[in-house]
């Protein structure tokens, strides 16, 4: 055959103690798997060593893994060929899995992070619509779930690293003492809870938003692995001002959007521009009504992550950054914004950025001020 079989990683690190520790964290801490649970494990086939270790841990817990392996990331033959109306509605069996699985583990392990970039926006939107049932359960946190990654060449390449370096980095960010991290993040969340005004100031940026009546949540490796963020749902109609994501490009379905500038009035994006791929930004904002409203303010807190890797799962956890998500908010933090998108965009505050809470400085140049947070 002119096309070689799927690449298979020759280096099997299944015996690596770190893989076992990683799998244990996911199954025991992140999901807390219980006997006779049906644990839906979605993974790229490249993640085989972790998938197998996770299967083993789930089996030991007396639960069933419902394995859903895929080749690429989003997309593939189905997304390109199927009638768009079929894509938007999941088949009944997939819908049942989405609405009755007891826990969801997603292991992202792309062979090419640009795999979905050739999908037209209508098909992309349809793919997202097909996941509505699950997304609703996940954002409402009514079911345990976690998203993690497996080190692949594609991810290493985007991060500008060798695979070996990326492996070290990933385990360094994930295999932490999460109880200690939880305490540290709890103290940061205490400062932000119910704040009438949070103000983000940096070059080209002066944005205020309200967390009045809202409680922050911390991710101590429960919904993301690595965890390491404090996040909250801004009051939907209160965001005002301008934010310029000048430091890092934003990634959306494999496309890189650079230099995003958003102006908010009354909580909505009223003006948007970008230096590169502006059309991707605009079509994302036009996805639905809720796509122009903030669904999240997140504060990066993971001490193991210091560099931007064009990989949102990690980038949004960089200590000294904040991120804003356009679209759906988490009801667990009191949010009511609905959208099929939830797009996290990261802003670095480590050079000249300031964070104010109720008018008082809380963070400068990415460092918490002792007067605000005893971190």
């Amino acid at each position, binding site marked *: *055959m002119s096309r070689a*079989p799927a690449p298979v990683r020759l280096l099997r690190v299944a015996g690596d103690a770190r893989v076992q520790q990683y799998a244990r964290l996911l199954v025991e801490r992140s999901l807390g798997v219980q006997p006779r649970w*049906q644990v839906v494990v979605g993974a790229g086939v490249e993640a085989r060593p972790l998938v197998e270790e996770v299967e083993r841990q789930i089996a030991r817990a007396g639960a*069933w893994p*419902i394995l859903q*392996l*895929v080749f690429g990331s989003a997309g593939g033959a189905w997304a390109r060929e199927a009638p768009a109306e079929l894509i938007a509605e999941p088949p009944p*069996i997939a819908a049942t899995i989405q609405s009755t699985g007891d826990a969801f583990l997603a292991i992202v392990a792309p062979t090419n992070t640009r795999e979905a970039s050739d999908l037209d926006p209508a098909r992309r939107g349809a793919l997202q619509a097909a996941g509505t049932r699950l997304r609703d359960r996940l954002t409402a946190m009514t079911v345990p779930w976690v998203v993690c990654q497996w080190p692949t060449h594609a991810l290493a390449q985007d991060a500008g690293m060798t695979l070996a370096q990326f492996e070290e980095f990933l385990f360094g960010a994930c295999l932490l003492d999460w109880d200690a991290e939880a305490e540290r993040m709890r103290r940061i969340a205490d400062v932000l809870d119910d704040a009438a005004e949070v103000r983000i100031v940096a070059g080209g940026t002066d944005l205020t938003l309200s967390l009045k009546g809202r409680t922050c949540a911390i991710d101590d490796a429960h919904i993301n692995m690595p965890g390491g963020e404090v996040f909250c749902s801004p009051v939907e109609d209160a965001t005002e001002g301008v934010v310029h994501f000048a430091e890092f490009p934003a990634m959306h379905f494999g496309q890189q959007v650079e230099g995003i500038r958003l102006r908010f009035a009354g909580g909505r994006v009223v003006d948007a521009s970008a230096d590169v791929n502006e059309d991707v930004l605009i079509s994302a904002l036009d996805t639905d009504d809720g796509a122009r409203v903030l669904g999240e303010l997140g504060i990066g807190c993971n001490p193991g992550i210091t560099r931007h890797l064009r990989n949102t799962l990690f980038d949004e956890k960089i200590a000294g950054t904040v991120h804003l998500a356009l679209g759906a908010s988490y009801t667990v933090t009191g949010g009511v914004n609905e959208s099929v998108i939830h797009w996290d965009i990261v802003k670095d505050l480590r050079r000249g950025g300031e964070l104010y809470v109720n008018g008082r400085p809380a963070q400068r140049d990415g460092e918490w001020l002792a007067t605000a947070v005893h971190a």
Partner: protein
Amino acid sequence: MRDPRLDEYARLLVERSVAVQPGWQVSVRSTPLARPLIEAVIEQIALAGAYPLLQLSFELIGGPFARVAPPELLREPSPLVRRTWDEVDAFVTIWAPENTREGSDLSDERRAAIEQSLAPRRDRQMALSVPWVVAEYPVPAAAQDAGMSVAEYEEFIFGSVLLDWDAEADRMRRIADVFDSAEEVRVVGPGTDLALSVAGRSGAVDDGHLNMPGGEVFYAPIEDSAQGVVEFSEFPAVHFGREIAGIRLVFDGGRIVDASARSGEEHLLRALDTDDGARRLGELGIGCNPGIRRYMKNVAFDEKIDGTVHLAVGNSYAFTGGTNRSSIHWDIVKDLRTGGRLYADGRVVQEDGRWLPLHP
């Protein structure tokens, strides 16, 4: 660029074998090795306006869950998997193992538990209440067992799969007519003289529907009729990744009353002791695929070799009239091409693997 033969293969599976209809949910089960064919199949399903439910696993038999899960959990499919089996409109299984000995490290208890958990799917498939097909994909492990290079094995697979299946169907139908009108079938060869009855049973023809490659005519023998001896001396049999050579079975009143093997005998005996139905025949199959001449240690092909018959111990296909029930269905192939004869009601119909004029 994908080999265009893969698109032809995928079209055969989707259009002919399971005839996908709009809105169907089609289970597509395989390993990552079969990616090129899987993607071609998904495209065909999408073009038919139906849903593929991709069910990839690294090992089709076994894997970490099978090795570690408590046996009582292993015995029972999860409700979601059970529901999938009950609800899908078609099953496409693409056989593409990394290693054909997968599953051989499972204990008998675990193997039996897995067989038991698969019962709902097996029952639905065996009753033909849902279209299904098992297709072979050219993987290195299968080429190795066949003693071929992957390139040679690919040619062989496409040669046995991409046939004019309507013409094959006609030819096999004529063979089935011979046995449909007969009561007794007798298989004779070195060390072998086995009689069994197919009275009242009609033959089924696999013309690229259940297996790809297809190419067999098969019957459910009358359950208490098998009488005599059969020696599978030409080829080893393979069961759950283990090879068993020189199997010899003695039947009396339909039941195996004596069984031995040159190697792997204990494994043979354990399989026969799986349950009550495991000592009775569930199938007499007649190989008819003109593209398959060589034994490859792969039952999906071997049972189709022109000039062979195969006997399955265990479960029979209800749609062929069979009533034997077992959690196993193990096909064992017997070559008749050197010194073998097949009789229908006392008349020789095949000699040395060649059909005598069927309509004299």
